[in-house]
Structure formats: C-alpha cells, structure tokens
C-alpha cells in the first residue's frame, strides 16, 4: 500500500464516514478529513523535491477483475503530481467556502464533495484505461448532484446539460477503450503504450484518426474546447460556489490532462495531423471566449467564458508539440485552477453578501470592503497575466512554444491577452470602483477570518508560482520531455529551440 493509495482512498473513507456521522458534525468532519488528505498528499512531493524522476512513482498494480483483465493500477508522475495536489488543496478550501453558503441537506453536500475528490484524484492517477473510465464517471455523479440539488433557480437544466454533454463524450471514449481492448487484450495504459512504441500495435491512418477523435471528443467537451463549451457557463452560473470552484479548477483539467496523457502519446500521427485544426479551434476559443466575456452582465458567466479563453491556451500549448508549449500548458492548467478558482470563490463572497450575480447590482464595493477588493484585484491581475503572478509564466511559455511552432498562431492567440485585460478590468471597475449605494454599504462587510483562510493560500500560490516557477516546472518538464519523446516520429524539425530537455539540465539549474 503506497502513500498514493492512502491519498486516493482517504476521501472515499471520508465519504462513507460522513454518511454515518450525525449531520451536525458533517461540516467539520469534511473539513478535517480533506485537510488531512491534503497534508498526507504533501508526502507525494518527496521523490520530486530534490530530483525529477521521469518514470512512475508510488505505483501499485493489483488485479481487480480477472476477466476481462481489469487492474487497479495507479501511479504518479510529474504530470499528475501537481494535479493531485491541486485537487487535495482545493477540496478543504471548497469545504470552507461552503461553510455558511450551504444550509440544506448539509450532510449529503459534504459527502458528495469528498466523493468528488475521490473521483478526480482517481482520474489523475489511474494507469488502467478501464479504471480511468470508472473514475471519470465517478467524478461526474457528485458534480451532477452538487449542481442539481444545491444550485440556483435553473439548476436542473444546468445539471442535465452538464451531464449530457459529458456523457456524450465519455461514451465515445468508452467505445475507443473497448476497441483498444479488442485489439490488444489489455486495458493497461503502460502496456498499450509500450506496444505502440515498439511497433507491435499499428493502426492504419483512418483507424488511428477515429480512435484519436473518440478520445479527443470526450476530452474536448470536458476542457471545454470551442465550439463544445456551451454547457460550461450554464453549469457555472447555477452551481454553488464550491461546485464552480471544483468544476473550473479541477474537473476541466481532466480534459486537458486526458489530451496530454492519452490523445497525444497513444495516437501521435493523428494528433500531429489534426494539430492545425485543433490549434485553430483553441485560438478561436481564446478570442471568442474573451469577446463574449466582455458583454456578460453576470459575473459568473463572465468568469466562465474567461475559462474558455484560458483553456484555449492550454490546448494550444499541447498541440504545438514543443517543450515550451507543453510545459506552459501544464503550468497553465495549475494556474487556471488557482486563479479562476479564486475568482469563483470571490464572486461567491460577493453573492453571499448581496445575493446577486449581476454586475449592475454592485459598484463601489471598494469603500465598504477594502480587503475583499484588494484580494479581488490581485486575483484579477493574476488572471490577466501580470508578470510576477502565476498566469504570466504559463501564458508566456505557451505563446513562446506556439511562436516557434507557427508564428501566425501566436499573433492571434496573443490578442486574447489584450482582451482579457479589457473584460477583467471593466468588471473590476464596475464592481469595486465608484460610489457605493446606501443599501450596498450596509450589506458589504469585509472579509471574515474563515474567508481569509480560504483565499490566502491561493493568493500565496499566485505569487509563488509567478515568481519562483522552478519549484514546479522541472518535474513537469521531465514528464513532458518523455511525452514528446513518445511522439517524436513526427517531431517538427524546424523549431529552432531544442525542444527536448534532459533531466540533467533541469537538475543543474535547480
């Protein structure tokens, strides 16, 4: 039993425990359990702190179902490490921000939160395709209920839409997984990947493209990639704060993680051939998301569309097949989790005070609630990619990688950086600046201790990730270099910056 198993199953144990505990204690219990999971998960950093192993760590591989041969195979690498930590960090924060917000069916709420954590961690560590699919679906169910039960007025619509979109994608993926099993007789990711590497598993061009698209469809909906994103704004607007937080910060990363883990290494030819199309969609998403965000009267919708824009950068980075692009994409996944998560938390704080998500209901918040305003400002600046804050590093790397792959793409994608300043600063001005109305001043107390506790870790991370990227990047780089190695058949040779970095280089620079 490895530390990873403990991190994975603790939330499940917590879920079961919450079901039998009296409901008065479920809030505190969920917080304590999720904090414990976070503390334990910090232990996962140990192999990655002083060196950057390129293979798997904390691997466990035991039989689950004998026939068909489905295995409980979980492991950690430089890619999943940070996503797991992001999930374990955000779950206690989600519990904190729900403290007063959730007042009905409290026990079920926190139970679902822990089940969700179990599901998303599972997705990031599963090394068996079937197991991956199981976790993928496990994470879907609690989110469906979080939106459907604790959401706003149109919650049922949003929950069903969320479920339908995601299901549609995952069924496609299931078909592809079963196809792969038919061809190989195994669900094990490592084995299948090895067969592709050694050439013992070869698809014809057409089949590879179809398999690629089946996986890609599932992940693209989850990301969400333009034009498959329409479920996201509805889901966000209706979800409770913690639901939006977990959805944006963790669940969307399941899509980009899947692209990088499965689509690119398993089907490199198809990935390379479709890259221009995908890049085009990503760039359209970047610009489109930003423009639509500009005209939103609803804060949560605005942030949701900004997510479409930000995640366009992630997808674009992946499909440049450059070291910078991939590193930036992974970094941007974490950044988006931190800064957009923080934005949803802060919008939630505003909602708890004023009970409205309409921007026009605000104005002048800076006067009665200066601390809230400053934190919101820092988060806004992180979101628009101000240097020394986290998003800048990710956006820079993505765009630098994009520029070396195709300079024209970089020109269009960089336009998104201009628009992001427009919609975020305009939102900030309309919400926080100006004179506060009488009724607003009376209902706008400044941050409470609990609210500080939930937001400060994220603000610290924004500065840390922006100013000291090398705490996080080397282990990501090593893993990305391995992924690029696996797809090197069609490596774009005209890239001037050597795309692969050896572990030695990054060690030397630590």
């Amino acid at each position, binding site marked *: 039993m490895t530390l990873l198993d403990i991190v994975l199953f603790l939330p499940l144990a917590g879920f079961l425990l919450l079901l039998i505990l009296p409901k008065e204690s479920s809030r505190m219990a969920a917080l304590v359990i999720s904090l414990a999971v976070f503390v334990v998960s910090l232990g996962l950093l140990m192999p990655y702190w002083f060196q950057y192993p390129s293979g798997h760590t904390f691997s466990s591989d035991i039989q689950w179902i004998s026939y068909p041969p489905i295995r409980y195979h979980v492991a950690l690498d430089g890619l999943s490490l940070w996503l797991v930590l992001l999930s374990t960090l955000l779950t206690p924060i989600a519990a904190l921000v729900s403290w007063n917000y959730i007042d009905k069916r409290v026990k079920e709420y926190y139970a679902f939160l822990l089940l969700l954590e179990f599901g998303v961690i599972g997705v990031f560590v599963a090394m068996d395709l079937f197991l991956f699919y199981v976790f993928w679906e496990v994470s879907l169910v609690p989110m469906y209920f979080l939106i459907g039960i604790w959401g706003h007025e149109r919650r049922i619509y949003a929950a069903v839409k969320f479920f*339908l979109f995601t299901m549609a994608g995952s*069924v496609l993926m299931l*078909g592809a997984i079963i196809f792969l099993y038919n061809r190989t007789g195994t669900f094990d990711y490592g084995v299948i990947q090895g067969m592709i590497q050694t050439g013992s598993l070869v698809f014809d061009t057409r089949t590879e493209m179809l398999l690629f698209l089946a996986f890609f469809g599932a992940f693209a909906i989850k990301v969400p990639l333009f034009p498959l994103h329409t479920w996201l704004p509805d889901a966000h607007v209706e979800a409770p704060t913690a639901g939006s937080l977990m959805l944006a910060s963790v669940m969307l990363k399941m899509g980009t993680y899947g692209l990088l883990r499965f689509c690119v290494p398993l089907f490199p030819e198809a990935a390379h051939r479709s890259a221009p199309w995908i890049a085009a969609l990503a760039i359209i998403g970047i610009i489109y998301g930003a423009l639509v*965000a500009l005209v939103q009267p609803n804060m949560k919708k605005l942030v949701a569309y900004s997510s479409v824009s930000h995640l366009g950068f992630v997808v674009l980075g992946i499909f440049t097949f450059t070291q910078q692009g991939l590193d930036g994409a992974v970094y941007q996944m974490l950044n988006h989790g931190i800064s957009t998560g923080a934005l949803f938390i802060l919008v939630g704080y505003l909602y708890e005070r004023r009970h409205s998500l309409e921007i026009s209901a605000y104005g002048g918040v800076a006067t009665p609630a200066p601390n809230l305003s400053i934190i919101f400002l820092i988060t806004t600046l992180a979101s628009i990619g101000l240097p020394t804050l986290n998003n800048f590093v990710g956006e820079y790397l993505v765009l630098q990688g994009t520029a070396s792959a195709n300079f024209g793409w970089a020109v269009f994608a960089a336009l998104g950086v201009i628009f992001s*300043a427009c919609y975020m600063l305009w939102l900030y001005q309309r919400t926080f600046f100006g004179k506060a109305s009488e009724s607003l001043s009376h209902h706008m107390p400044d941050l409470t201790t609990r609210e500080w506790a939930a937001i400060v870790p994220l603000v610290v991370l924004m500065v840390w990730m922006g100013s000291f990227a090398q705490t996080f*990047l080397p282990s990501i780089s090593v893993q990305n270099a391995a992924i690029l190695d696996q797809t090197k058949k069609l490596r774009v040779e005209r890239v001037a910056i050597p795309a692969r970095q050896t572990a030695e280089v990054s060690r030397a620079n630590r």
Partner: protein
Amino acid sequence: MQLWFIPILPLVGFLLNGIFGKRLSKPAINAIAVGSVVLSFLWVVKTLNALGVFSGGLEESYKEHYYTWIQSGALNISVDFAIDRLTAVMLMVVTGVGALIHIYAVGYMAHEGGYYRFFAYLNLFMFFMLILVLGANFLLLFVGWEGVGLCSYLLIGFYFLEKFATDAGNKAFIVNRIGDFGFALAIFLVGIHFGTLDFGTVFAQVRNMPVEATSGIFTAISLLLLVGATGKSAQIPLYVWLPDAMAGPTPVSALIHAATMVTAGVYMIARTSQIYLHSTWALDIVAIVGLLTAFVAATIGLAQNDIKKVFAYSTVSQLGYMFVGLGTGAFSAGIFHLMTHAFFKALLFLGAGSVIHALSGEQDLRHMGGLRKHIPITFATLMCAGVAIAGVPPFSGYHSKDMILEAAYQHAPWMYWVGVFTAGMTAFYVFRALFLCFFGEYRGHHHPHESPAVMWMPLAVLAALSLGGGYINVPKFLEPLFPLAEGGAEPWLTYVSVAAGLGGIALAYLFYVVSPGLPESLANSFKGLHTLLYNKYFVDEFYDATVVEPVVDGSRQLLWRVGDARLIDGIANGIGTTARGIGGILRRGQSGYIRNYAAWVLAGTILAIAYIGFMGASR
C-alpha cells in the same frame, strides 16, 4: 555588489505600508515610503561608486545572477540584474528624481484620503521601475514594463470614486496592453532566433553579424519593439492615454507620467540598439514616429487650458524628441534628453502641483494669473524649468535638445526643421502656461498660499538640476556603448534652434503678458484685440489668419476634438463597442433548447459507437 538591494528596498516599503499602513501613523508611513526610496538612492550611489562610475570605470556590463526563474527545454530565463553605463544613468534618474518626488508627495498628499495606499503604490512603482532598468533579459524588462503599467493604472485611478479617473486608468492599461502585444511578439521572435532572452548573449550574437546583414528578422523585431515603445512612451498612434492619465494625483504625473515610466520605451530602444542598428529602415520609422509625435503633441499642447494637460502634451512631445534622437542614431542624445527632461518636466509638474495646492485644487489656467507675488518660490522654480525646456542656453534642455537636432540635421535636414519648429512651439506653450499662471491679475477667487518647505525644497533641487544638468556630460559617459558621431556640427544649427526657443518665449510673452486680454478665447480675441490695438500691423493679422489661428483652431478643433477625441479615442472606444457587438451576435448562436442538444448528442453517440464497434469487430 548586492544589486538586488536597489529594488528590494521599495518593495519592502510597499509591503510594510500596504499591509500595515492602515494602522500606522502618518510619520511612520512617511518614514517607510520616503526612507526606502532614499536608501535605494544611496545604495545606487554606493554601488556606482564601487563600480568606479564616478572615476571613469564600468566600461563593461556588470551582472549578478540570482536564481533561475523559468527553465523549459533549452530556454533558460533567470532573474539576473546587470549594470552598464546606460543603466547607471537610468538608476540615478529613477531613484534620484523618485526620492525627491516622494518627499514632495508627503506635503502634497497630506490632506488626502488613502494616504498609505498612495505611498504603497508609489513604492511598488519604484520597485518595478528598478526591475525594468536592472533586468538583464527581455522577460525581466517585460516584468518591470508591465509592473509599472499596473502602478500607473492604480495611481491614475487613485480617486476611485470618480468615474473619469477609473476610466482613465482602464484606458491607460488597455492602450498599453496593445503596445505590450507588440513587445511580447518581439520577445517570442528573439526567443526563436537566438534561443535565449539574455541581453548579453543576444547582443553578442547580433554584434558578430555584419551590419550589412539587414535581414527581415531584425526589422520585424525592431518594429514590434517599437509598437511596445509607442504604448509606454505615448507616441503616435498610442499616445492617447497619457493626457487622460493626468486624472491621477500630481506627484504621480510628475514621477510616472513625466520623469520615469514614460521614458521606458526610450530606454528599451536604447537597450536594444544593437538590433536596431541592423535595420536602418526600422530606425527611420522610429525617427519619423518621434518627429510626428513631437510635432502633433506640441500643437495640441497649444490649445489646452488645464495646466496639467499642457504639460502632459508637452511630455508626449518631448518623448517624441527622444525618439528622434534614437531614430537618427544618436542614442546617447536621446538618453541625455531623457535625463534633462526628467529634471525639468518633473519640476514643471511638481510646480504645477504647488500652484494647484496653493489654489485649493484649481487647474484651469483661465482662473489663475498674477500668482508670482503670492507664491514666489514656486514661480522662481517654474521659471527655471521653463527656460530649461525652452532650450535657452546654457540650461539643461538646450544641451540635450541641441544634440538631438544636430543628429536630425545630419540624418535629414527636414527633420531638423520640424524639430526646430516644435521647439519653438514647446517654448511657446510652456511659457503661455507660466505667463497665464504667474503674470497679469489674479482671476480666481481662492486665497493663494505658498507651499510648505517639504514641497518647495524638492522644487529647489530640481530647479538647480534643470539649470545645471546639461553639464553632466551623458553622451561622453555613454560613449563606450554609443559611439559619438565624428566631426563637429555647423554652429548655425544651434543658433536657429536657440532662436526658435527664444522666439516661442517672446511670442508667449507678447500674447499673454503684453496683451493680457487674449487668453479668454484665443480664436476670437486674436482678431478682435489685434485689430483694436495694432491696426497697422496687418502682418500680424496675416500671421494670425494663416499661422496662429489655423494652428490653434486646428489643434483644438481638428487635432484635439476630432483627431484626438473623436478619431483616435473613437477608434479605441470603437474597438470596444465593435467587440461588444460581435460578442453580442456570437452569444445568440448558442443558447438553444436542451432537447435539441440532447437529440444531437444521442444521434452522434449512436452513430459513433456503432461505427467504432463495427470497425473493431471487423478485424
């Protein structure tokens, strides 16, 4: 040498005042804010002394490495600081003038709300500005670049209850973002073609290429960098944010929007001069943009009644001169003018602030007048700034502007003449403002009072620098970096430019002191007053009709109201409106009925599963 001490001190000041400022007393806030910048200045002096700057040393760049910031593939971006002679000049200007303005602000802001917030932002600005000049690679320069932009945004919108202030802040940030878009693309190109962003490595590579190898890539990088520079340094076509930026408190206008931040574009082009020297085409465009801006902004400056607006357009215009210097290859002249401009323009703004302070917030020149008797120290110091900017020998502006104009003449005589004309206009509008302010009869209804010592002492220091700063031989000092042109200039070039400056002053004196009835409405009263008093001077009226009126009216109606406000502002606003329009249309296409989504999803799924299953089974 501990170069990191220089920016860290203001950062500590920012953190202390930003976090604890609410609970601190005013003297404590002052001590932290001013103390950190003064210490930073002293550390600069100590460092430069140790590097031998004051005794002819530092011919090569001195660099310190701190830690690796970003490492991805072969791309390594470190937090490195470097000092060469160019940085030395910038450091002295930024920390020296910065310290003076911090001291001044203690007096100016004494009765304002948000005291600690103001000084926290100001210290944060100093931090980023020092990163900007110390950074030893493109990305670190960009960090400072964006950071000072942030502080500019925060300080323009300092009075955040007022919509015009926060609008101006947004405008500044967004227009600068457009410039940064170009800057960022330039960085990507450098990254692609050199594999590193380190200044030393990149420029060494560039230097080893023959100058004749003017490939497209150098032109592309240069022009993209120029796009960035036009944003930050308020050049055509991106200068529109700077006049609006005057919504911020006056010390901010002096520090950020006159002396330091807006010169970042000039610094950036000088820093990357190696790249520009490989593209004469790009250099020509720099010169033309600068000349055009200098000219256009000066004409606009003629028509302003707000004392800060006059000086704002003057800043845009003077920045244009610096670009002319850069573009004609006289990089050291551009930097020289950057320094002297920092002295006299900071002084003009601080002096204007002192006037505004004396009149309890009045900024309209039409409600001033005769103030030289009420606030004599302010009057004397502002006159020093006036003669300096007008290029009167032997004061500071004369030395630097003259060098630029000589370089412009050697490059293309018509550029010299446009520059000379602009110099005349500069002298004119500056003295117009000064005469309107200090001469004649007082036209307002406040009780003017001289500013406290904490405000006029910095004015006095800056006045001394404005008068004598021209004898700091910056071009000679920068010779290891920017070789001086061979051969002496023809003396008549100097006579003409000096004459233009004096002519401008004389013209202003004529209009605003000799004939004080004019200021009410220039366009109308020129004709009436001149007809009344000097009936025989038809020459004057001819000039009025053909030169003054078109220039003044054209500046106000065409350039300011139409060109500036409607055309360029209109385009900036139009982009937003159009974007909203497009966004509105796009939005419509996607909010359908759920049953439609469901049907499509189901149909697609069935088809796909059937197909994949069939393909798999058929093998």
